[in-house]
């Protein structure tokens, strides 16, 4: 499903990704962990071209792109490549001037993919799936952070992406709201959604991930099934990281 080869990304003289290889199969839930600044968010943002990689190869759901530092992908091709992925942000980024329902409808509707009635039907079904069918007519400022994040998940799902990307989806939430978002993500995983998740929630990594990737300093240091990577870390770096995040 996803094949990343030797991906590099520099901001000016600072190299944030120093040659990343990553494979994610259909139905996999890959969890990216690592200290802040290790490049995991940048990697995620490269996958949907919010950042243009400096070098390397990306393949997602059959769409391929190669980068050599001067590559400028035309707008249309970017949109085409991006349509394979849906993204959920740390800060939700809901559209504040639209209701919950309109937010979820926005993707199919504004891209002209569905009629208003069809988009509404789909949006209602998705809101039901994330447990928010009672909140359709509220505005984002009227709901809690956990609810907002579930709306954001429904909004991304409305475009029926092949892969869902989650960029620290629970980091901006009050602790008591984290669970409801993780539950939704877990149910997506059970339904076979391919997901790449950047998170500090080790419990989620342990229980839901089919693959855990540990990054540090722009490199992938360890990757594999959670039992292996989290249960028996091979590197001292990972051992020390885990001891810090798991108290």
């Amino acid at each position: 499903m996803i094949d990343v080869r030797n991906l590099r990304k520099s901001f000016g003289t600072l190299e944030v990704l120093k040659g990343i290889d990553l494979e994610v199969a259909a139905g996999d839930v890959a969890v990216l962990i690592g200290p802040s600044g290790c490049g995991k968010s940048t990697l995620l943002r490269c996958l949907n071209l919010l950042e243009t990689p400096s070098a390397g190869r990306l393949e997602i759901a059959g769409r391929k792109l190669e980068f050599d530092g001067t590559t400028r992908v035309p707008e249309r091709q970017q949109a085409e490549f991006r349509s394979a992925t849906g993204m959920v942000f740390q800060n939700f980024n809901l559209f504040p001037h639209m209701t919950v329902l309109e937010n979820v409808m926005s993707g199919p509707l504004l891209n002209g993919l569905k009629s208003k009635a069809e988009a509404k039907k789909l949006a209602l079904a998705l809101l039901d799936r994330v447990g928010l069918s009672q909140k359709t007519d509220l505005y984002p400022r009227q709901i809690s952070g956990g609810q907002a994040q579930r709306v954001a998940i429904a909004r991304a799902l409305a475009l029926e992406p092949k892969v869902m990307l989650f960029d620290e989806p629970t980091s901006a939430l009050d602790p008591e709201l984290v669970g409801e978002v993780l539950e939704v993500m877990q149910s997506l995983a059970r339904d076979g959604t391919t997901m790449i998740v950047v998170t500090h929630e080790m419990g989620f990594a342990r229980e839901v991930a089919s693959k855990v990737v540990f990054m540090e300093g722009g490199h992938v240091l360890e990757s594999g099934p959670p039992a292996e990577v989290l249960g028996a870390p091979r590197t001292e770096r990972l051992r020390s990281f885990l001891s810090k995040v798991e108290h």
Partner: protein
Amino acid sequence: MYEFDWSVVMDPQLWLSAVGVTVAYAVVTSIAGLLIGVVLGLALVSRIPVLGWIIRIYIHVFRCTPLLVQIVWFFYALPMITGWTLPDWFAAGLGLTLYMGAFSAEIFRAGVISIEKGQWEASTVLGFSYWTKMRHIILPQATRRMIPPIVSQAILQLKNTSLLSVVAVPDIMYAAGGLTMSTYRPLEVYTFAALLYLVVLTPVTLLANRFELKH
């Protein structure tokens, strides 16, 4: 002790037509200026290379030179230099319009760039084209933020029409000038003129405040 004599300002006919001229110039030049501002502001935020520089120079010149000079320049100098014969009423409003255009382009640009990066990113990952983003995501939010500075600018614009009196446009200030000449009562006349501006602008500010409360 000065004795006020308010009877000298009692000339309803004169004031009525003067207020009409002032309001007409304020409304027309504000709307025309806003249209210029929207177009130039959009061009600025879409970062069109050469055009961007030209627009920036235009904004800079009009924001940083006195409006009085601009009005005089467009009224007298432009027809002389170009040989165009512009109707007086039009030439008189040109400076004001371009002045409003420069300020509103800047208000417009500021409104658009004030929208959080996350809104752009969210609409990018949803696959929206540039114009879809602008029209459905960015502008509806930016417009709300632009209303207060646009209202202030429009209020300034109405007061700035007083400068039109130098090119003999019969606005409130021009009427006041004439009346002062004939009555030698500047204190009463100009105080009354100020009152007229106040009367015209009060409902505008009240309306704007109500709009802000609603949104």
